[in-house]
């Protein structure tokens, strides 16, 4: 038996106390509904590290799909890694909301280009992007590279293009960035540590 709000008022207005229903042994079928189904029962777990502050809490990311060929993983829940010695399963308000970072509507999806003076972005391919970036860098470098300073001393530096490295990218990314950028002779090269 389903009881809607209107029915309830009808019952009351009609002078029938609901106690009478009760006395008849009323037992709603829906009351047997279980607790909400546990949503992590067969999710795939991946260990990760929170990308925000330097506590570097351990994470367990739960994703849809079991990594079968035809299932594209989608992370739908993140919680703290209870085995992690520092956070022991806890997460702060930022870490607890990481799933919304991954799925932010402001995630960039494609290389884009904005021409001088333009008011809009234009989607381009990776090859176009790499080609254009490399061309701009090379032209500037070839024009402004300083092989020897005024005193004739070999200095091999390039200081007309600046580089700013990330603060949340991995060590591996940081390592290769340093290696590649320094090989160009770059000195105008810094990261978040100074800020």
């Amino acid at each position: 038996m389903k009881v809607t709000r209107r029915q309830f008022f009808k019952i009351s207005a009609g002078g029938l106390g609901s106690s009478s229903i009760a006395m008849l042994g009323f037992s709603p079928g829906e009351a047997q509904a279980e607790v909400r189904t546990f949503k992590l029962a067969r999710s795939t777990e991946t260990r990760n590290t929170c990308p925000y502050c330097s506590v570097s809490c351990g994470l367990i990311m739960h994703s849809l799909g079991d990594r079968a060929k035809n299932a594209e993983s989608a992370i739908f829940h993140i919680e703290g890694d209870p085995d992690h010695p520092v956070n022991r399963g806890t997460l702060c308000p930022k870490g607890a909301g990481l799933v919304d970072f991954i799925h932010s509507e402001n995630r960039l999806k494609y290389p884009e280009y904005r021409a001088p003076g333009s008011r809009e972005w234009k989607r381009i391919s990776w090859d176009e992007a790499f080609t254009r970036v490399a061309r701009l860098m090379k032209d500037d470098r070839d024009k402004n590279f300083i092989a020897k300073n005024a005193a004739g001393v070999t200095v091999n530096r390039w200081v007309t293009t600046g580089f700013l490295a990330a603060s949340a990218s991995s060590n591996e990314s940081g390592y290769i960035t340093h290696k590649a950028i320094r090989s160009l002779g770059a000195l105008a090269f810094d990261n978040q540590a100074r800020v």
Partner: protein
Amino acid sequence: MALQSLDITRRSATTTPSPGQRRTMEVAKLIDVTKCIGCKACQVACMEWNDLRDDVGINHGVLDNPTDLTENSWTVMRYAEVELEPGKLEWLIRKDGCMHCANPGCLKACPAPGAVVQYSNGIVDFHEENCIGCGYCITGCPFNIPRLSQKDSKVYKCTLCSDRVAAGLEPACVKTCPTGAIVFGSKEAMLHHAEERIADLKSRGFAKAGIYDPKGVDGTHVIYVLHHADKPEIYSGLPKDPSIGAMVELWKGATKPLASLALGAVAAGAFIHYVTKGPNEVSEEIEKEFEE
């Protein structure tokens, strides 16, 4: 076998007895206000776990956002800047949400069969599919917790993550709490934990440190450790002696199988009045009716 997934001991507006042989461990969530830094991790974890997203609001001149419980915010931090001694500021931050009363006013007030259930472990849960949106539970609650959704006319509140607890996990807010201000376990263990905390607080000069487990609702399954247990009201209006309103008790009494049909009708009418007009007017009215 639904009733056994978490054993239900009581259902709203229902008199057929629930299976009663099995007993499960009584659980409790302890909120140690003295360790809370008000970071809102519990609020985020709650929303994230329960797949809720409240509105992106505006700032009202305080740090509290969302500023109140809603159908999407089942827990909020309430911040109070208090000076009990001049010049000695205390920033009392209390996580608010369902207290999971042993004697739940919401369940007693609810006229919709099975919309509010109480499990044998102490969790009081709303089964929204049975909710008729009357809002009586809101009036029945001495802590002003349940919230009616405009979208689906159903009432929502903290479930103490019954889905997680049923799977053997702690609630999402408990797990995430960075400073261990929220802990979870058997009620007995939580009371013991509270004792330890109170001893530490007393050693730091909080002579009135104590536990909040109000007797007026037969105790709760969410309990607080307070530095000033003698003044719960300074924690953004935590009720000093919460109890279920007389009308709610009466209404519920009337649903008992042996209560008379006539009394039931009177009580029902009065109760509807109570929830729509408020307790004071009603109490006068019902007194009069009883006098007659």
